[in-house]
């Protein structure tokens, strides 16, 4: 009896190892029935020195989240971040899957995130809302190398005009357009390096800078640990684009980590 592969043109395996890269989503989605529990953490500025134990004493933002694979191509999730006491709901839909036989050379996914700031400040509900959306285009170039390009938009229903310590007026914009550029290079089966760059295009809030992050992916069976240095203390895409004010290459970066743990709930 001749031997034939069951699905020779099936999707390639894991373009990225986790549903997130550093601050942004990767095209990798959860298989149907899988639940991913995520802890994201970023500390204070690492270059503040040993007095603050390289940022570990600094104010940390933490996001706890769960995402669930409704289908192999669709996941939904919720999370809660410490900063702004932010609750967010999100989805990721894989529209195209890169195939092993090359018939489809790219992976295409859409993501959306709606955040609700719950600080007690007298705002109306609609004033508290913020949104992030992205089109993720990625390719697993080889077993070692994957790349991703992601046009994205961030919108805040409410922004502020502030005065800094020098008396200068700082004006925030409601909407920011950005591009997520990311890559992963596997050093071994279990270890990969990550890089992510989020340039903002067009108008931007005063002080907003482009976030550049680097990190390590460590895979141990059901866990994926991501250790990284990033300038951003914000942990959702819409905030990372619009609210980051620190610059990696000026030494303003902080240590952070993501822990991803996958469970089967079928």
């Amino acid at each position, binding site marked *: 009896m001749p031997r*034939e592969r*069951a*699905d020779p043109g099936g999707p390639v395996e894991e373009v990225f190892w986790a549903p997130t890269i550093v601050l942004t989503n990767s095209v990798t989605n*959860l298989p149907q*029935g*899988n639940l991913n529990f995520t802890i994201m953490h970023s500390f204070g500025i690492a270059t503040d020195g040993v007095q603050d134990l390289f940022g570990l004493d600094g104010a940390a933002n933490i996001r706890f989240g769960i995402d669930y694979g409704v289908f192999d191509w669709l996941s939904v999730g919720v999370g809660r971040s410490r900063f702004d006491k932010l609750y967010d709901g999100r989805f990721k839909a894989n529209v195209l899957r890169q195939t092993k036989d090359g018939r489809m050379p790219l992976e295409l996914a859409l993501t959306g995130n709606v955040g609700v700031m719950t600080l007690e400040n007298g705002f109306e509900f609609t004033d508290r809302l913020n949104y992030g959306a992205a089109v993720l285009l990625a390719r697993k170039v080889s077993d070692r190398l994957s790349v991703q390009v992601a046009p994205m938009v961030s919108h805040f229903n409410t922004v502020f005009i502030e005065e800094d310590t020098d008396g200068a007026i700082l004006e925030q914009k409601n909407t920011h357009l950005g591009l997520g550029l990311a890559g992963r290079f596997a050093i071994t089966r279990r270890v990969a390096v990550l890089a992510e760059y989020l340039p903002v295009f067009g108008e931007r809030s005063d002080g907003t800078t482009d976030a550049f992050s680097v990190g390590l992916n460590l895979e*141990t069976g059901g866990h994926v640990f991501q250790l990284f240095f990033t300038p951003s203390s914000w942990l959702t895409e819409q905030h990372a684009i619009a609210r980051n004010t620190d610059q990696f290459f000026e030494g303003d970066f902080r240590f952070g980590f993501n822990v991803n743990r*996958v469970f*089967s709930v079928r």
Partner: protein
Amino acid sequence: MRYALPFFLLLLVSPLQAQVYMTEGGRAEFTSSVPLHTFTGTSDRLAGRIDLAEGTVDFYLDLETLDTGIGKRDKDMRETLETDQFPFAEFFGTLATPFDPASRAAQSVRVQGTFKLHGVEREVEIEGTLQQTADGLRVEAAWDINLDDYDIVPPRLLIVKVDEVQAIRIEATLSPENS
């Protein structure tokens, strides 16, 4: 004579007449243990062919169709089995005990042949049952394999090592080849 035509037609469609049975949708399952935990991987893409006239038994499974319920674990399994290089688990052998195709009872049988996994071939004897049913030829079998015998290094989950002995189970209903 007036009953002859219906009789011959009945013979043509009866699975009892078939000598060769095939499936591409059998079920294969392995059970793996780590300390304090057991998990199962399954596939419904087991392919098989049994020729009762020749007494041959031929089965194979595309290992990438095995699903343990967690995508990350599936990926680990495929890397451990090196499925890019060795995509199939295969058995080819012969019936070593008699089987009466006219009986509808489940009959214990033993097959002898070569089991190939991870590029390593080993001679094995497997016990199971064969049964003629209205849908075709029903096969059930279970046996253990030792990963070390097939040059497979059991994966580790942190410091916990997956047991080298894996319990294998297959079940399938094979249809007459030309049905």
